[in-house]
């Protein structure tokens, strides 16, 4: 190969541009700034920390600490790139246990904001005030100041409009900030913390142990119930707190895992925790946990990319096993498992046995969990076509006609033995594992996942209510109130108008308290408060996706309101579910994209028996 490729000349980027590019890596969003500033403050020996956020960090992020502080020359150096005091103090990078060691954080933040630092170093009489705008030092002068450092990051991304445009709603951005705050607050219970949002004090956490810190963040009830974990084997120490099954959560948002006090994410370790507590979470849900691993630094590697918190262990299996053992031992010492299964079952029986088959007016309305979906226009007496013709192609076309067979009234009974005649000639439907509906077709067998099927039905219904005709509301005799955490208030308020068109009348009655006055008329709801909190949690969890909030809320309602897997259904409920499913616009996939049904063709069955 003698050919020389013509190489474009290398151009050095102007420093300001390079800084802004580099900054993007460290400071993607306000929460990242908060993380860096808190990390610095902790490294600076602070034991009291006040954080003030305005407009979810767009206007102001301010962190005030009482740590060692910085002198004038320290300050100037801190703004220069790759200036870090920390590598001097530690011999090598592997054993680092401080947070911001790359020396990138402050200069990066300085490059994309209007930064103001006031600091007085311990033992100095005067402090220094330094103002930097877009990376340029604008002011550096002596000033009277308390010991410690106060850093204000104003107008973040003022010179990076593209980044600014990619920020989410205030509620979402603040959710991330609050999550960073909680991670640090739980990691350092001996530090006292305050978090202000738009001048309101959201959290005031006094120094204490992990349990009292949990009480400050999640309430005394939760903290009291938490089960302590204390475990040591070889080079690994595990300690922390995990919730008992009775505190199962709807979401995974309150799970905090640390290694050497540094927050980490590890699906593998998470699985160890879940499998350990699974027998004690008989009715499902997610645990709350704060679990801290301690290990010699040479046993693991945290990906040093600033935005990532993933961790790799030299001995993954050992860590998995030990973490599993730590959690299982703690939780099994605390509670005997499955104590309530028999009781629950008999209660369910009571409810189910009361259902009777009568005409709509003769039967009490609440006995009909599934109500027919509004049919699409039916001009003739023929059953509605469950599929539009253009979707038919190849084998699917066959499936379509099979399902019409099922959705229509044509009986498949002659193909199989009928277990129990339901008195009419509706299709035969079985429920297996209390999870799937199974029905024979002329040319095969269809399996339907009851939860996702119902999810699809409710999703379309909710969406129609939001976008076209609002749903009417059944007023409640006993209005139900609920409280949300301070940072969720905005999210709930964002949801309220949409919830109202879905039929939920929810009014604010306090700074973080709401009251459910009415629910969607005619839709069977079990546990209004739990349902609504579930919807809000789900809505919040999907806040990072780009989709329309209306779709997200409809999906959240569908997901939380739908029958669960494992719930026994009566024949008429199953029949209605199937009828409604095939009245849907898209009966094939649930709002999350999971398939709703699957058909096994007769040809396939024939093959099993070599026919």
């Amino acid at each position, binding site marked *: 190969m003698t050919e020389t490729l013509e190489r474009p000349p290398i151009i050095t980027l102007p420093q300001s541009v390079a800084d802004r590019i580099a900054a993007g890596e460290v400071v993607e969003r306000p929460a990242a700034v908060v993380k860096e500033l808190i990390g610095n403050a902790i490294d600076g020996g602070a034991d009291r920390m006040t954080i003030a956020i305005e407009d979810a960090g767009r206007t102001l992020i301010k962190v005030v600490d009482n740590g060692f502080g910085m002198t004038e020359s320290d300050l100037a150096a801190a703004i220069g790139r790759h200036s870090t005091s920390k590598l001097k103090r530690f011999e090598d990078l592997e054993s680092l246990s401080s947070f911001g060691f790359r020396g990138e954080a402050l200069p990066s933040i300085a490059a994309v904001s209007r930064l103001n630092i006031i600091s007085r170093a311990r033992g100095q009489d005067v402090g220094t005030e330094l103002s930097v705008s877009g990376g340029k030092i604008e002011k550096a002068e002596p000033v009277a100041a308390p010991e410690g450092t106060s850093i204000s990051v104003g107008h973040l991304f003022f010179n990076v409009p593209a980044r600014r445009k990619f920020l989410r709603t205030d509620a979402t951005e603040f959710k991330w900030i609050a999550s960073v705050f909680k991670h640090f607050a739980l990691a350092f219970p001996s530090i006292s913390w305050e978090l202000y949002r738009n001048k309101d004090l959201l959290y005031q956490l006094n120094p204490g142990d992990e349990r009292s810190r949990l009480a400050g963040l999640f309430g005394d009830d939760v903290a009291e119930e938490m089960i302590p974990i204390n475990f040591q084997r070889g080079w690994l120490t595990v300690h922390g707190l995990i919730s008992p099954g009775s505190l199962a959560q709807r979401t995974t948002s309150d799970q905090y895992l640390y290694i050497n006090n540094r927050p980490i994410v590890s699906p593998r370790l998470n699985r160890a925790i879940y499998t350990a507590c699974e027998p004690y979470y008989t009715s499902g849900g997610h645990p709350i946990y704060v679990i801290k691993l301690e290990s010699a630094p040479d046993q693991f590697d945290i990906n040093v990319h600033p935005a990532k918190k993933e961790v790799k262990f030299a001995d993954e299996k050992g860590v998995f096993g030990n973490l599993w053992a730590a959690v299982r031992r703690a939780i099994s010492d605390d509670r005997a498992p499955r104590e309530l299964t028999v009781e629950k079952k008999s209660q369910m029986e009571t409810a189910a046995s009361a259902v009777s088959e009568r005409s709509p007016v003769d*039967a009490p309305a609440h006995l009909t969990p599934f*109500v027919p979906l509004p049919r699409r226009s039916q001009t003739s007496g023929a059953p509605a076509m469950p599929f539009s013709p253009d979707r038919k192609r190849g084998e699917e076309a066959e499936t379509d006609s099979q399902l019409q067979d099922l959705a229509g009234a044509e009986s498949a009974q002659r193909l199989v033995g009928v277990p129990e005649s339901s008195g009419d000639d509706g299709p035969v439907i079985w429920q297996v594992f209390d999870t799937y509906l199974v029905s024979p077709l002329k040319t095969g067998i269809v399996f339907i996942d009851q939860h996702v099927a119902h999810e699809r039905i409710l999703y379309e219904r909710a969406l129609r209510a939001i976008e076209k005709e609002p*749903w009417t509301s059944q*007023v409640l*005799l006993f209005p139900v109130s609920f409280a949300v955490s301070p940072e969720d208030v905005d999210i709930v308020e964002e949801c309220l108008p949409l919830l109202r068109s879905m039929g939920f009348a929810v009014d604010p009655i306090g700074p973080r308290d709401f009251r459910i006055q009415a629910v969607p008329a005619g839709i069977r709801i079990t*546990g209004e408060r739990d349902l609504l909190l579930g919807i809000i949690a789900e809505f919040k969890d999907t806040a990072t996706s780009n989709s329309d909030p209306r779709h997200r809320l409809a999906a959240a309602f569908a997901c939380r309101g739908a029958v669960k897997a494992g719930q026994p259904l009566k024949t008429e409920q199953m029949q209605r579910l199937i009828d409604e499913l095939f009245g849907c616009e898209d009966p094939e996939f649930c709002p999350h994209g999971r398939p709703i049904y699957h058909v096994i063709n007769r040809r396939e069955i024939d093959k099993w028996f070599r026919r």
Partner: protein
Amino acid sequence: MKRGIQRVMGVVPTRLPMPSLGNIFVSLKNKMLEITATDLEITVTAKVEILDSEGEGSVLIQAKRFQDIINQLPDVPLEIEVKEPLKVTLKGEGVGEYILPGGDPIDFPELPEIDARVSFDMSGEILKRLITKTMFAVSHDEMRPILTGVLIQLRMNEICIVATDGHRLSRIKRTDISYSGEEKDVVVPMKALHQLLQGIEDDDEPTIGIAETRASFTTDSQRLTTRLIDGHYPNYQSVIPEDNPHTMTVNTDDMMSVVKRISVFAHPISHQVKITIKQDSALLEAEDPEIGGRGEESIAVNYEGEPLELAYNCTYLADVLRQIDTEEAAFKLNTSNDAAIIKSTVQNDDEDLLMLLMPIRLNR
């Protein structure tokens, strides 16, 4: 025997938490034959008249098969014998001989003994009436177990029964009860009430016993014990409005017929029916926009007050009207967002039945 089996079969669970619950416990003691079934929550024991007996003992018999054979047998004296251990022989004149596999009675759960702190008698007819008038409003929401039963409140010479599902409420009081014990509030599960309605005759005089966690209802021919639902019943008194300003009086049967007809056109999910009330008539309207169906009908009413526009679930409305025994029903109304109170126009001196219905918010 048939009647006895019928009485107990209702509690045999269809899904068995313990295999032994699919059996009935048959026991012969002191010349008395008793058969018992339980689902752990509710236990029913029926006493069966016997002509003659020999020996004592007990055995488990598979409930379904026992019922099937007894039902098929004509009304002739039967001989039931447990000769070898766990083998039950059924014989009767002209009906041959049947052998049922028996089970060891030790497998049957121990039956709860109830140490009643409160006990009183009342007429079977009245007890059934109280249950019927309230049961329709019981909730089926398993997330709020307390509402899945009826509240029984005992006061001096008074019994008050309440059921609500949070959308409607029914409360019935009787003041002709001979009760002089302590004040007591308990919540009895729905299934026990169903069993009582089936098992108690009008001329029975059941004795009701209430202990800490259980209650029993005992007549000459059967005894039902049930677990009570634990928890605090919501303060229903505070949500019953005392002074709804407007009253609408309407012929009960006419209103019922109109509601039934209109409900055919009600929206299949919300079951909503709109009522526009003027001086001497009320217009009921329902619409199902999805299929384009619509119905309206006017009914004569007696009404004082401002014209009102309200909406209710027509199923709930029919449930309420069904409980009214008098020719006319009185609706006490406030605004379209407030609870309506429905009563009979003529109340028995000893009885007070009140029903409450929450509206559907009209969507404008």
